[in-house]
């Protein structure tokens, strides 16, 4: 019963927290670029404005697929906060992502299709590391159950510094920040227009933004799990990691997909798998 309440609280709080984080992100980014930047609440204004617009649906599946994606992503966050199985949460998130790709494929626009191609490549680059992180946490704490991980006395980070580093690396892909914002970026002026989300308009685009909020919270929660035994340290670590991501976003150009894939896999192999091997041998 308790788990259900936690899950619902998580689902309800996520948009508020992620929106605020997004707003602060934009202010800090603007500062780094020497600009004034929008008000902190701007992400909420954006989403509200998008909802008030006409929904241009291209075909039968388009909008429905986005809703499916939203459901799975929300479920992933809900399950995470309810303290369910970590692997299940990750797969729910992946399914949500796949629905997004399908929505983009369904539109028949070349920019959207290429964006979807790249989104798949991004998943291919990022997911192995995220799965390794889950396995690593299992090896460190002996369980996939988030409740047990969170209430454990040992933080996973002391066994998994390599995995943690690898996770930060692929986080850039998940948060859609430079240098890995290939499929769709926060700015609609990349080579693929807005890539994956080119054909989304009005409410669909608003849902897309909300999905991204949930994703953000999900990966941040994943970071937190590494420090679960000491909540304050965990929250500070999450904030530092997020700031790092903003910084990386601002000091890099967007790279091409082959470099992204290669580097993500090399990092996964060396830091992720290497760390796990060491752990396996030493334990």
């Amino acid at each position, binding site marked *: 019963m308790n788990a259900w309440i936690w899950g619902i609280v998580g689902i309800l709080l996520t948009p508020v927290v992620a929106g605020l984080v997004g707003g602060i992100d934009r202010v800090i980014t603007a500062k780094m*670029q020497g600009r004034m930047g929008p008000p902190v609440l701007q992400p909420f204004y954006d989403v509200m404005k998008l909802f008030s617009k006409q929904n241009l649906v291209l075909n039968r599946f388009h909008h429905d697929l986005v809703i499916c994606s939203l459901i799975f992503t929300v479920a992933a966050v809900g399950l995470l906060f309810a303290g369910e199985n970590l692997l299940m949460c990750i797969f729910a998130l992946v399914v949500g992502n796949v629905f997004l790709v399908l929505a983009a494929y369904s539109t028949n626009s070349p920019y959207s299709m290429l964006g979807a191609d790249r989104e798949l490549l991004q998943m291919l680059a990022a997911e192995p590391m995220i799965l390794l992180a889950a396995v690593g946490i299992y090896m460190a704490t002996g369980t996939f159950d988030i409740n047990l991980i969170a209430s454990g006395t040992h933080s996973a980070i002391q066994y998994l510094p390599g995995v943690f580093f690898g996770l930060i690396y692929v986080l850039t892909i998940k948060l859609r920040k430079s240098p890995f914002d290939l499929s769709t970026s926060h700015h609609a002026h990349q080579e693929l227009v807005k890539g994956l989300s080119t054909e989304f308009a009005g409410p669909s685009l608003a849902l897309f933004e909300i999905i991204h909020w949930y994703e953000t919270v999900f990966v941040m929660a994943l970071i937190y799990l590494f420090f679960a035994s000491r909540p304050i340290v965990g929250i500070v670590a999450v904030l530092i990691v997020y700031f790092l991501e903003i910084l990386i976003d601002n000091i890099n*150009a967007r790279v091409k997909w082959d470099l992204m894939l290669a580097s993500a896999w090399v990092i996964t192999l060396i830091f992720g798998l290497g760390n796990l091997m060491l752990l396996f041998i030493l334990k």
Partner: protein
Amino acid sequence: MAKRTIVPFGPQHPVLPEPIHLDLVLEDEMVVDVLPSVGFIHRGLELLCQKKSFQDMVFVAERICGICSFIHGVGYCQGIEKVMNLDIPKRAQFLRVFWGELSRVHSHLLWLGLAADAIGFESLFMHSWRVREKVLAIFEETTGGRVIFGAAKVGGVRIDISQDKLDQLAIALDEIQKEYEPLAKVFLEDYTVQHRWSEVGYLSKEDAHQLGAVGPTARASGLPQDMRKLRYGAYEDLEVEPIVETAGDCYARCVVRVKEIYQSLDLMRRVIHKIPAGEIETKVTGFPQGEYFSRVEQPRGEVVYYVKGNGTKFLDRFRVRTPTFANIPPLLQMLKGCTLADVPAIVLSIDPCISCTER
């Protein structure tokens, strides 16, 4: 054979601030063929010479382009001055060089910003434009206009800059250089920037010559071609060596522009140092009779003005061949064999100005 798709690129592509339309024939993400179309903003400015007197035509020439407007005006004036055998005071010629080089700095900084934006480097974009803002402030301070300022005039310039102000400007130029230096370093040395531009959009020296590339596009392919070497106007007293790179890719074109900003800043300092006192214009009497092809160097390359006067206050013919027009054939060559992700970077690398192209 892979499936071929045709991706329309432009005329309103968010990366590209210019209305050029390219039909890209793709095999997967590889461009195999390109078909350009221009002509979305043809305004018929050349024909206006039959409606505007040759003196008012300067304002039209300046409005061909919103970025290098001053040099357009100067090129036109120079043509008329040759036709009318006018002798322009030295001070006016030096002032023309000053504003012309400042326009070059402004245009190159604008381009650097846009190019950074096209490869997803937003912070570099913002910082480039922050520096550019200081250049615009100098324009506003000296002429009153920020982009199109109407300082050129048949027979000289319309506004003088006092010596005190020139000395102040020398300090301002140093400040601009100081702020520009760290950004130039990023363009020249940053890893991701090189990753996006190195070996992208290659144009060989032979192709560059054959296809008539001009300006930084030609210089980046190893052609030492700079119209300032014709020593028109005050360039007679200011020696300019073209900046040449040999790699011929997008990165080389960026390097040429980055270095040209230093060169222009240096030229302006020499102008401030050398500028003679005296009149800023000669009186214009009579009407132009005769013809001349006036060639000047713009930020984007060589621009040709053909003026033909018939002894009345209206010209017979005013023709402009802008650098972007000449750079379209090399662009088509560069695009073949690149991936879709590189297309904006390559199109931007010639610094397209379609308003210029279509007049």
